[in-house]
């Protein structure tokens, strides 16, 4: 091979010179079709509504004013706090919070149990937990509604056992919505906690046990601080989608379980819609999510320093 040029061996496989063309499609797609739309949505929340749906390009604070204040039927009374929308947000936070706690109470022991199996069995257990995550969320929610409806299989089963004499009215209650959220996002809680427990060094627990610490004290005082980042990640992965959930409250709940997702959805449907108001509600929701993410990032940074 005499005379052939020397191969470019140093840094020959480095892709750094090509990084701009390689990243261009990602920047273009997510930048143009998600980042700019989210920013545009924030702009729309300051525009004037048009009555057939859509907007007029006149800047106003009307959408936020409608969200937070009540100025009477004709808008000429002194403003008082408008509780309608704040209470929908409060209810959503409460529902998402309860669903998160329920997921944690079930998800932690499950993740722990899987992570303490022999390595060969773990992937099978994980596989079983992840299958429902891959099933269409709409289908899962519809299936849950079918199961728990007034004359559905669950009530028939319980009445057959003689546990109850009348069917439990579950559908259209807060409990059904919480159950739906719990059911929708449970795998999101199990997976990050599993990852944390799998990395946990059990010598720590053994050391505590050698010093006569009771089992549950070890869990609380030794294990929990170590696996906390996994727990926080799991809680966030359940809480954030629960907060903006649409399907569970819409299909399993009724008028009394109205959540943020339905409130936003309604503003963009047909001629009764109010686009700037819907955009403003979405901006408030996005702000809450950013606060939650910020708190988690700060907790993670603090955990990394310790």
């Amino acid at each position, binding site marked *: 091979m005499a005379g052939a040029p020397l191969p*470019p*061996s140093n840094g*020959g*496989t*480095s892709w*750094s010179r*090509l990084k701009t063309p*390689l*990243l261009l*499609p*990602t*920047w273009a*797609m*997510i930048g143009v*079709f*998600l*980042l*700019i*739309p*989210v920013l*545009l*949505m924030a702009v*729309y929340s300051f525009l004037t509504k048009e009555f057939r749906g859509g907007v007029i390009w006149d800047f106003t604070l009307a959408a936020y004013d409608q969200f937070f204040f009540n100025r009477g039927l004709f808008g000429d009374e002194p403003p008082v706090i408008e509780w309608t929308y704040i209470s929908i947000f409060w209810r959503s936070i409460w529902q998402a919070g309860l669903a998160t706690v329920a997921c944690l109470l*079930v*998800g932690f*022991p499950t993740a*722990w*149990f899987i992570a303490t199996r022999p390595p060969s069995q773990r*992937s099978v*257990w994980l596989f079983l*937990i992840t*299958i429902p995550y*891959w*099933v*269409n*969320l*709409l*289908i899962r929610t*519809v*299936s849950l509604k*079918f199961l728990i409806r007034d004359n559905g*299989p669950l009530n028939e089963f319980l009445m057959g056992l003689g546990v109850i004499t009348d069917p439990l009215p579950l559908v259209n209650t807060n409990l059904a919505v919480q159950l739906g959220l719990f*059911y929708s996002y*449970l795998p999101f809680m199990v997976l990050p906690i599993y990852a944390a427990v799998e990395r946990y060094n059990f010598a720590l*627990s053994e050391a505590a*046990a050698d010093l006569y610490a009771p089992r549950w004290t*070890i869990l609380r005082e030794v294990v929990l601080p170590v696996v906390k980042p996994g727990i926080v990640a799991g809680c966030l992965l359940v809480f*954030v989608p629960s907060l*903006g959930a*649409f*399907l569970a409250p819409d299909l399993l709940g009724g008028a009394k379980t109205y959540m943020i*997702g339905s409130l936003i959805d309604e503003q*963009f449907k047909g001629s009764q819609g109010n*686009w700037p108001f819907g*955009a403003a509600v*979405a901006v408030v*929701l*996005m702000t809450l*999510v950013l606060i939650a*993410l910020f708190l988690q990032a700060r907790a993670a940074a603090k955990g990394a320093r310790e």
Partner: protein
Amino acid sequence: MKGVRHYPGFLGITIACLVVLYAPLIVVTIYSFNDSNSITAWGGFSWRWYVDVFTGPEAERFGAAAWNSITIALIAATASTAIAVAAALAMIRGGRFRGKSATYALINLPLLVPEIVTAVATLIFFSAIGLTTGYLTILIAHITFCIPFAYLPIAARLSGIEETYEQAARDLYATRAQAFWLILLPLLMPGVISGYLLAFIISLDDFIITNFVKGAGMETLPTAIFGSVKQGIKPNIMAISTLMLAVSVLFVTLSYFVNRIGQKTRT
């Protein structure tokens, strides 16, 4: 020492967890074979609702919706996987560069923004630029939110492949393109397949964003099912649900085995 790993009751909770996750799916699967017009009473085993799905009065509507869903999922998964492979090469093999953490945040943005917010923002954007909502707008939205799902397994796989393989190929006078197509891509394949399957399922699964950007007259399977369910759960919906369930289980099983093979060939 087994003692510190074992907590009483954790096995019970794990089993309860699986029961909660599977009970609704199993019940719907069983009732989809119910030979009765009522969804409450059991009338014996039958395939009639599956026949109804393909030949019944709603067959045309669901057929068109299924066609839209599947073609959108195929195109979106292909496009987002290709975009994700390119991004992973730059992010994992591109060294340090300005804007790397901003790019990382951008890739993960679709995971951070709540779906309903993405839906609203995308609808507003398409309406502002005057793009008529329909097949194209659904497709653009799907490609965008599928990118991080395709990226994660591909990037994980790529960071586990040492650069020496490509360097060896280059030392033996392979061009950059040859080293990529003949050496790196085959090694990367388990990640690419996982990413593709994940993107496909995520696209097929989406309801909220599609429902916002689909426009009038355009349906995908989830929006068509949602429309029907609003009038009550009918047996043919349970048959369609069971079919989609079967597709999902098939895909997750495929992905599981691809991962197993991937782990065996870990470099």
